[in-house]
């Protein structure tokens, strides 16, 4: 047995991935860890850093997770107007939101490492700059390349934020293009931004090696009302930090997931030199299904494999949603729930289902009576 996250694990994950390079994580993929932490299939696909969207497509279940060009360009335009003049608009916003008394601001683009695409080089530079002696004035760092431990391994985080330092404190600054209208924004989008911010805060804390210097209050910058004028709001991400730390510590246990997965399972697409998958789709699908999933309709918004898992789960009450399953007394199978409700199963009801059966039978009889009463209009 190899040590957790050790070479053995690494080898297995590489095998799962097939000859592919690991995908780089970004805050979104890490934040997504929080959306179905009970799913071994997803945990494994993520830990192995596979291309989930391609896998789903090749297995016969493409997902329409496309992004509209309009949304993309809107995001770019909004972000550019802020970054083009960091000493103006951006600084003014930060000054006001964080209540600071800073007259000017430095701007350092950490993406710019003499054109070196090497992640390690870029990360080293980020680290050197961010842990260096603080400037007297505030400084904005664009595109810091962070590193993050996921599943016991280091993953690079594609930068999508600005780090703002004043005195000895860093704030994560996130620029998003959803609107804040009269002080309100789409709560689902804010939640996503908050958890991404929390990922950045954790990664930054890891980098600078000191919890206190990276603040738990992030700054979220969004367009205000219907215009392109930016508006900054602070976002307290302490809750998200707690959740993430816990989820990540669980993922560190990817070995325990691997222990339940047969050694020959692979998610490889067997791509040829041109990147075209050569693997038999049926074979890939079979391998995917050998790893346990935990489907619920929430997956539809958060996981590339949703259509595959939903199809696999058909006939199970979990496709109807958690609250439905709960109301059905936790019965897993649709035909069984129906049989119990109708009470027409010739076999005796197993002991552990008796209570649920009684509830279902009662619901069925109430439903029957009510429908009959409505027909007879005797109520």
């Amino acid at each position, binding site marked *: 047995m190899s040590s957790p996250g050790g070479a053995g694990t690494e080898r297995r994950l590489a095998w799962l991935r097939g000859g592919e390079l690991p995908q780089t994580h970004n805050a979104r993929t890490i934040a997504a860890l*929080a*959306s*179905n*932490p*009970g799913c071994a299939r997803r945990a494994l696909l993520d830990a192995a850093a596979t291309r989930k969207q391609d896998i789903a497509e090749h297995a016969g279940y493409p997902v329409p997770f496309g992004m509209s060009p309009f949304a993309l360009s809107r995001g770019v335009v909004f972000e550019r107007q802020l970054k083009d003049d960091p000493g103006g608009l951006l600084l003014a916003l930060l000054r006001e939101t964080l209540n600071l008394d800073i007259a000017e601001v430095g701007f350092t683009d950490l993406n710019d490492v003499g054109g070196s695409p090497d992640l390690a080089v870029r990360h080293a530079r980020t680290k050197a700059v961010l842990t260096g002696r603080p400037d007297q004035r505030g400084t904005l760092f664009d595109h810091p390349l962070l590193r993050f431990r996921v599943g016991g391994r280091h993953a690079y985080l594609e930068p999508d934020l600005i780090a703002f330092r004043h005195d000895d404190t860093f704030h994560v600054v996130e620029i998003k293009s959803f609107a*804040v209208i009269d*002080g*309100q*924004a789409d*709560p*689902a989008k*804010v*939640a996503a931004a*908050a*958890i991404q911010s929390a990922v950045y805060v954790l990664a930054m804390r890891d980098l600078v090696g000191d919890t206190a210097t990276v603040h738990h209050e992030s700054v*979220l910058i969004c367009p205000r009302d219907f215009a392109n004028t930016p508006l900054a*709001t602070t*976002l*307290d991400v*302490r*809750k*998200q930090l*707690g*959740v993430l730390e*816990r*989820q990540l510590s*669980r993922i560190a246990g990817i070995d325990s997931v691997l222990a339940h997965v047969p050694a020959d399972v692979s998610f490889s697409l067997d791509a040829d030199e041109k990147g075209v998958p050569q693997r038999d789709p049926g074979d890939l699908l079979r391998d995917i299904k050998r790893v346990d999933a*935990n489907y619920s309709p*929430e997956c539809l918004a*958060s996981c590339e494999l949703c259509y595959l898992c939903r199809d696999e789960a058909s006939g199970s009450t979990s496709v109807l949603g*958690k*609250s439905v*399953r*709960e109301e059905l*007394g*936790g019965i897993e199978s649709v035909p069984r729930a129906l049989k119990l409700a109708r009470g027409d199963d010739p076999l005796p009801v197993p002991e*552990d289902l008796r*209570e*649920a059966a009684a*509830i279902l039978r009662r619901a069925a009889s109430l439903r029957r009576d009510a429908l009959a009463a409505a027909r007879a209009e005797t109520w």
Partner: protein
Amino acid sequence: MSIAEAADRARLATEEILASMESVPRGVVVDSPPGAGKSTLVVRAATELVRRGHRVMVIAQTNEQVDDLTDVLAGRLADHDGDLRAGRLYSESHRVGWRVERHQNVVSAKSAGELLDCRVVLSTAHKWATVTSDEQWAWAIVDEAYQMRSDLLLRVAGLFGKALFVGDPGQLDPFSVVEVDRWSGLSWDPTTSAVEVLLNHNDHVPVKRLPVSWRLPASAAPVVSEAFYPFNPFTAATSPQERRLEFGASAFGDNSVDRALELAARSGWALYELPRAHKPRTDREAVRACAALAARLLERAARTVSERSPDPLPVTPDRIAVGTAHRDQATAVRAALAELGAEGVTVDTANRLQGREFDVTIVLHPLSGRRDATAFHLEAGRLCVLTSRHRHACVVVARKGIPDLLDAHPSVEPVHLNVPVKFPDGWEAQQAIMAHLERHRVAAP
């Protein structure tokens, strides 16, 4: 800490609060952890204000609470000055309890106009909201202010000049049956608590704390404090030696119910753990276990020794509570208790156990037997109420598997801009309590 020390700390805190009432421009908020002497403070403050010559209105949330306060206050006023009268303002549908009627110095009436010569008048917030009067009360004392919704405060706030708000921030938040986002982020969101709105608009209003719990034993105070009051820690007034739970009759043979009770008697906590299974929420085994534990306490003639009395006092049925999350669970437990012939034990949901106190509580864990958690079941306030009602011991009944369920819980709750984050997070508090309970596990057969 010894009781004397605790009493000193509590007295200091109270005196500081009473003294500060002289000078504050508008009012004071007092956070009171479970059993920290909230009612005592309310009564003392009322007497003190009356003594200083003010007319005082007392606002509580339920008739039950008003009657309780009136009872204690009437006794205190009588000690103080035989001529002072307290008024009990009540509404059509309420019958004033005997514990109010027995006091000579209490006048009960349906209209505030009949209580003009009472220096202090007590009623529910709902009743106060119907009072129209041009006269302003110098002071109001608002009890259970964290459970009062801010729209109700809006209706009564015109009646008084200054106010003392007392309440427990760790219990259940008020809620509304209509779910609309339209007020989220507003400083006066009508669905939030009275205290929250008040503080949003009055940052000069100081927030004080009561530092010691008279109710919770030394075994519980640190656990509850850490899980539910992470930023406002409190301690138990009593030391472990000062509270004892013992049994008059010894157990014969070896069974898990007795083992759980004995562990709880020894350590203050027990987790009575049923085998892992997904069950409907009226899980028969779990319900029966709750009833059996309560009945067995009575059978074995449990008794307590505490600072209240040097001689052991029997744990009578009214000193035991069974707490649940849902009403149908409470109904099921009551039926199971009736079958066992154990009458008089209080069985209720967390909502209705708020503000109450018992020697021993038995808790049907809100997550027991579930496949997944919902915001309702995770709510920190619910678990806080259930695990902080006892003076001696708390036995939690649950199916195995709650930590796994918590770990698999997706954290995708929506986030509203400009709404302060509420601590503790239910999910984290649940984890903390489970981590503690795991160390007090007794496996049920």
